[in-house]
């Protein structure tokens, strides 16, 4: 693709990641409210939240690299993830092995949050950070195995290759299992109940985010919403890319619709569940990893 097209696609992906994610967060809140018999905030509320927070005093509670750069790094990693992810077309940043890069960048965004929490020095952030790490250790393998199933079947380590193969191939058992595993991992990656263990405000007063306020908090929240959206895109495009029209705008629209359905399901699960303890969550995801490995077994035998 030409350099101009690539730049345009970069801007599109980054734009969707940044500008559309608060809208989806707002829709999520509205759905949650409807299930809880409430009216809920208006759909554009997250935009207002960001504007408000960005306008507040920048209060630093500790010194150190992560405290200074944490929020920007977090958002930066998520934007990088958006550039590596397919949204209606091939991802703008494509190179050999970018599936692996996708996985690492997704983890890096979460790791930055944990490190910033540690750097803040609060006991609550420390406990929240350690819980997040424990969760990451079991959730990342689920995503990895799901992607490995795709890689195995498509015989390629590039996202665009995987996308093209899946679009042409149609549904298969192994990819269906992988999609389900990725969806279950999404619940934790999006920080939703029953797995919002790290940010449990009822227990830990916000976990790693407890010392963040004002613009820093705005960037962290934005990063969380964008990550939720981008990972949903990855799920929807890599595992369920049908139907494909071939026109970028229409495919993007279709993808957005599918993302909306995925996030709606995530929200419903969020509403009807209490938060799990970290040991219970670890047990759960270990079981999911084994399930995902079953998908890999299916792939090996050719299904």
């Amino acid at each position: 693709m030409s350099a101009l097209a690539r730049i345009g696609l970069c801007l599109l992906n980054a734009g969707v990641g940044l500008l559309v994610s608060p809208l989806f967060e707002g829709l999520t809140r509205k759905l949650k409210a409807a299930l809880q018999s409430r009216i809920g905030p208006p759909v554009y509320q997250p935009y207002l939240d960001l504007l408000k927070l960005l306008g507040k005093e920048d209060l630093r509670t500790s010194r150190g690299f992560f405290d200074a750069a944490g929020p920007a790094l977090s958002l930066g990693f998520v934007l990088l993830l958006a550039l590596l992810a397919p949204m209606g077309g091939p991802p703008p940043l494509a190179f050999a092995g970018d599936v692996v890069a996708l996985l690492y960048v997704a983890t890096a965004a979460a790791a930055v949050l944990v490190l910033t929490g540690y750097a803040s020095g609060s006991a609550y952030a420390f406990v929240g950070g350690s819980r997040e790490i424990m969760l990451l250790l079991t959730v990342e393998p689920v995503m990895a195995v799901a992607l490995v199933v795709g890689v195995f079947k498509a015989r390629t380590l590039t996202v665009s290759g995987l996308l093209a193969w899946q679009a042409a191939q149609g549904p298969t058992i192994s990819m269906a299992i992988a999609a389900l595993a990725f969806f279950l991992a999404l619940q934790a990656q999006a920080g939703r109940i029953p797995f919002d263990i790290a940010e449990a405000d009822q227990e830990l007063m916000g976990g790693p985010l407890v010392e963040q306020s004002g613009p820093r908090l705005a960037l962290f929240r934005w990063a969380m919403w964008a990550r939720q959206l981008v990972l949903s895109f990855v799920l929807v495009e890599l595992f369920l890319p049908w139907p494909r029209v071939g026109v970028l705008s229409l495919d993007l629209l279709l993808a957005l619709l599918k993302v909306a359905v995925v996030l709606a399901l995530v929200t419903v699960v969020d509403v009807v569940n209490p938060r799990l303890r970290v040991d219970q969550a670890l047990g759960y995801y270990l079981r999911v990893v084994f399930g995902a490995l079953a998908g890999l077994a299916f792939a090996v035998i050719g299904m």
Partner: protein
Amino acid sequence: MSTAADRAGVRQRIEALLRADGGRMRLTDRAGDFLFEPQADTLHVKVEREAVRRTAAALVADLGARFLVTVGTDRRPLAGDYGIVHLFSLDAEQLFVALDCGVDSGDARIDSITPVVPAAAWAEREFRDAVGVVPEGHPDPRRLMLADDWPEGLYPLRRDVPHDLKPPATEGVRPPMKAPPPGTSVVAVGPFFPVLEEPSCWRLFVDGERIVGCDYRGFYNHRGIEKLGDTVLTYGQIPFLAERICGICGFIHSTCYCQAVEKAAGIEVPRRGRYLRTIMLELERIHSHLLWLGIAGHIIGFDAVLMQAWRIREPVMWLCEAISGNRKTYGMNTVGGLRRDLAPEMKPRVLEVLGPVEKESLAVREAILGDTTLIARTRDVGPLPPETARALGVVGPPARASGLRIDARLDHPYAAYDEIVPHLCLQEGGDTWSRVLVRVEELLDSVRLVREALAALPDGTVLADVGEDVPADRMAISVVEAPRGEAVHYLLTGGDNRPYRWRVRAPSYPNLQAMPAMVQGQTIADVPITLGSLDPCFSCTERVEAVDVRTRTVRVYEPAELRELAQRKRGPS
């Protein structure tokens, strides 16, 4: 109801007990033997201070008495001593036992009964703070309810201390907290408790994520209620103060207080008044349990339960507003009965509101019974074995969830509970899930009780004609089953239309003392729901202090100190 024969039987057993000790203690029942005449339901035993521990141990072990509370009274104007009265309940015989020990004002110490009656731990620390009598041999003699910067030697409930005294605030004072056992670290939850959003400071000693012990510093919420009760307010004004002891069980406290005065003065509340009190008490239980269900859901991150439980509860609040003029603080109780009657058009309205409440509560129960994630968060969490519950004097749903048969409505029937009999809701599990089940069952039983009471509501007045003054020098004990457990009010009547002493023991007082036992071996994540499952009411628990809360602020950190604390590796502990 206990009969005269029952009482005689108990008296004989107590007398035998006392005789076995060499006759140094006696059952006092003749006028002149006691300063404040007890009512027929109370057995008054006078003990010497050296024998108080033995007697308390014998009461608990041999007679099966249950410790209620200890009251420290400054009786120097009357008898030159401090009165330390340990109150026990003999549930089976529906009697109270008051173990009265006069402590000489020149030598203000008494044997602590905590080593033999663990439930007395806080009560003894409190009378030390209040009147200055030292409980010797107490395992934990720290301050309980006085602020850490309150001057030493100044005991607020002594009669020579004015109610509006404001000692100067001091800086640089921290509460003395226990040191963690070796190999553990400290996680402080509080002093602003994140979930319940009330001031209480728990220090958890943790080994990884497992808790090996905990320490508590509370009583930040003192408001001087007991001191106000015996200095500036009259009998008729105290119900309004009693109603504000608690934000959710106000009617319980005002009823309990009014019942104590009515017992002391021999005032008979008309039957309609007693029935109406029962109806309002049960309505309060309904909305309190629904509130709790929502809070418990919120604590474990299950906001859907919070929203639904509070949605179901809201019509009950509107109903109470229509009946009494306010959603929560009914203002209906007064000595002798009620100030407001139930209008005839309210009867069908109450039934109309209860119908959907019952239906929806049943639907919620159906839904959560099969919810394995909810059960995973609550089963085996915060276990309280029955022996521990009994030893610590736990009351209310936490006790009943551990299989203890305690319910003040059945043990010491009051209002109309002798005719409208509640069901004793028991579970054997002793964990948080059992407590959820007990409260849901009680909620549904309360609906039945209100319906029965309404159907049987007698005609007549709701207020007795209280002609004469309340006679002085009487003692009365009144208990009421609050949604959280048994509330106890102890009253000594004085002259000039006010009490000589008014002691309130809320149900959360013994229940909070069970927290260390309940969090032992649990993880930090389970602490909020364990505390929540006790349904603690911190404002109920903390009411004995005589100082304006605003001046008694916690220490003020210097800005540099704050920054340094925030930037230290592990944060403030």
